[in-house]
């Protein structure tokens, strides 16, 4: 199994780390050589995290880091705890994690940091006290307003919409939804948010929840799903139903998952940042923490390869950039 294989690698890597830690004081030029970084996504089987991990691998290649990916099968709140504990016991230099819950993994992260492991969160943050740096894909405001902009364009500026989220306690989802609610009230008086449904980032659950939304709200004009699994499942349901062409589906999706539905006309446009860049930046941030370039204090700067220079903001947040819109004209250029 993936888990045990990774454990074996971590044991080996931990030993390597102990060696470099001794040599490091004498030879600073060694930089990140032999440093182990563990990548812990919300769950495996998620193409989004597959792309972020390959971005991190690219960075690891440039930096000479040893990078390992481990992760749970489902994105339940406490499923990441055993993986964090294992990493802490193996003494990895840094842990790059997308949190399934802001607090449920806090104790485990505290323990890891007490053992000297640097913690970088990406994609979904924990409470700030549990990590050193959060690599933010985009500001929550940017994401919320981009999605509202898309859905408003697609439904002609007025009507009922619903949100299909991941799990009810997913940090990033809830932050975006809160902002969307506020912005709907202030800037889109003719659009009414009638329901928020939770598909738990599971194909089947998201699919069935979409069906329920369409049944419960006959006047629904659009569905916004700020999660890659949810938006693909919603598009799949709508594309095979009588609602195709009548109910707009948009949200945050990956080009490979949405290609089918953009080509058959179910989906006009959807947004996302480049998760590859996100993983790339997270790996650079982890490396900068390990070699002491940054500590997580606001105002510090570090270089992140092809992405250029980044500055650490308030609360140890590093921002990647603005969301990107995919539509029929450009989806062919992407493959993730």
């Amino acid at each position, binding site marked *: 199994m993936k888990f045990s294989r990774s454990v074996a690698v971590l044991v080996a890597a931990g030993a390597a780390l102990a060696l470099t830690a001794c040599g490091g004081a004498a030879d600073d030029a060694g930089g990140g050589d032999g440093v182990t970084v563990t990548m812990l996504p919300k769950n495996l089987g998620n193409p989004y995290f597959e792309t972020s991990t390959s971005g991190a691998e690219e960075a690891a290649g440039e930096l000479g880091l040893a990078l390992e990916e481990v992760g749970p099968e489902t994105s339940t709140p406490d499923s990441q705890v055993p993986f964090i504990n294992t990493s802490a016991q193996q003494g990895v230099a840094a842990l790059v994690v997308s949190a399934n819950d802001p607090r449920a993994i806090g104790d485990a992260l505290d323990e890891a940091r007490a053992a000297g492991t640097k913690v970088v969160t990406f994609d979904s943050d924990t409470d700030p006290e549990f990590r050193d740096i959060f690599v933010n894909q985009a500001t929550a405001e940017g994401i919320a307003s981009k999605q509202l902009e898309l859905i408003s364009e697609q439904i002609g500026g007025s009507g009922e919409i619903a949100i299909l989220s991941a799990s009810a306690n997913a940090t990033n989802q809830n932050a975006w939804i809160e902002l969307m609610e506020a912005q709907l009230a202030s800037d889109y008086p003719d659009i009414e948010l009638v329901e928020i449904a939770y598909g738990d980032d599971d194909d089947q659950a998201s699919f069935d929840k979409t069906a329920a939304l369409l049944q419960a709200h006959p006047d629904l004009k659009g569905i916004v799903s700020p999660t890659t699994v949810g938006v693909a499942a919603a598009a799949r349901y709508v594309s*095979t139903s009588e*609602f195709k062409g009548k109910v707009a589906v948009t949200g945050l999706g990956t080009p490979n998952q949405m290609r089918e539905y953009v080509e058959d006309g179910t989906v006009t446009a959807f947004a996302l940042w480049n998760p590859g860049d996100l993983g790339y930046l997270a790996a650079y941030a982890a490396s900068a923490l390990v070699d002491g370039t940054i500590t997580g204090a606001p105002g510090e700067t570090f270089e992140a390869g092809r992405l250029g220079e980044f500055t650490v903001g308030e609360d140890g947040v590093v921002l990647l950039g603005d969301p990107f819109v995919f539509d029929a004209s450009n989806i062919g250029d992407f493959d993730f």
Partner: protein
Amino acid sequence: MRAVGAALRSREAAVALVLVLVVAGTTVLQPGFLLSAGGWRDLLLTPSLVAVLAVGQAIVVVTRNVDLSVGSVLGLCAYLTGTLFAAAPDLPVVLVVAAAVAAGAVLGLVNGVVVAFARVPALVVTLGTLYAYRGLVLTWAGSDRIDASDMPHAFLDLGVRQVLGVPVLAIVAVLVLAVAAHYLHTSRAGRQLYAIGSDPDAAVLYGLPVRRRILTAFVACGALAGLAGVMFAARYGTVSSGAGTGLELTVVGAVVVGGVAIFGGSGTVLGAATGAVLLVTINRALPVVGVPDFWQRAVVGVLIITAIVLDRVLADRRARALARARDVRNPQEVAR
């Protein structure tokens, strides 16, 4: 009046009645639940997959065993289906279905061999294979997934196509049910499954081929889980390593609700399939009538507990009735 009473004493009829009430009640509140084209289709289509699994599970449960690995078998076979299509899009659908069913049968055979020959309780064996088979999918799939664009349209179309207003997948489920019901009800081997479940020791003493029958039951259950895997791929259009996670509990719940005694020896596949339709339909109806997400699972739990308590009460009453009948026939027994 007596006919009504007799019908209500039949568990199948009672579950069917509850099902009709749920559908009728939901339709009154939200006419689209039954009376729209999509509503009618989903009513038949959504439960098909769980119904096929429930039929397989019922065959195992009547022998006083249980198969908890069905969710993982489904995931493995669904991923196999997607992988075959991704590798060779021109493969005939029949061939892929046969491959998935065969793979499911092999996984079922493994369960059956350990249960029948090593005499390890099925609960333990299949709990083990639940994780082992899931581990196999995880190792195989890693973080890859099969998207809708990886599978041919002709196959995906099977997931939604209707013949005379009845979805193809529902027809498949009804055929499976009819064959299994006929086999269990009329064939010698089918009746022996009940005998084994009623009293395994007596079945051995009587000279029934207990091991072979249990093996057959597990193979049938595995094969049907394989078939359900194909249905999953066709219906949902996306398969990740997590496909079918947690489904085993829904299936066992459906079987219990449908009146198959968890300690074997009684119940029918018709009841199990009806129980599956009821559970799935309640799950679909609750969001439609506006019951919040969080309460939906609780309702299903209450339903399962009610079914088990009902079983217990009915079994006690039957035991007392039998005892009374015996006492009347043999007055001297009482005197002794």
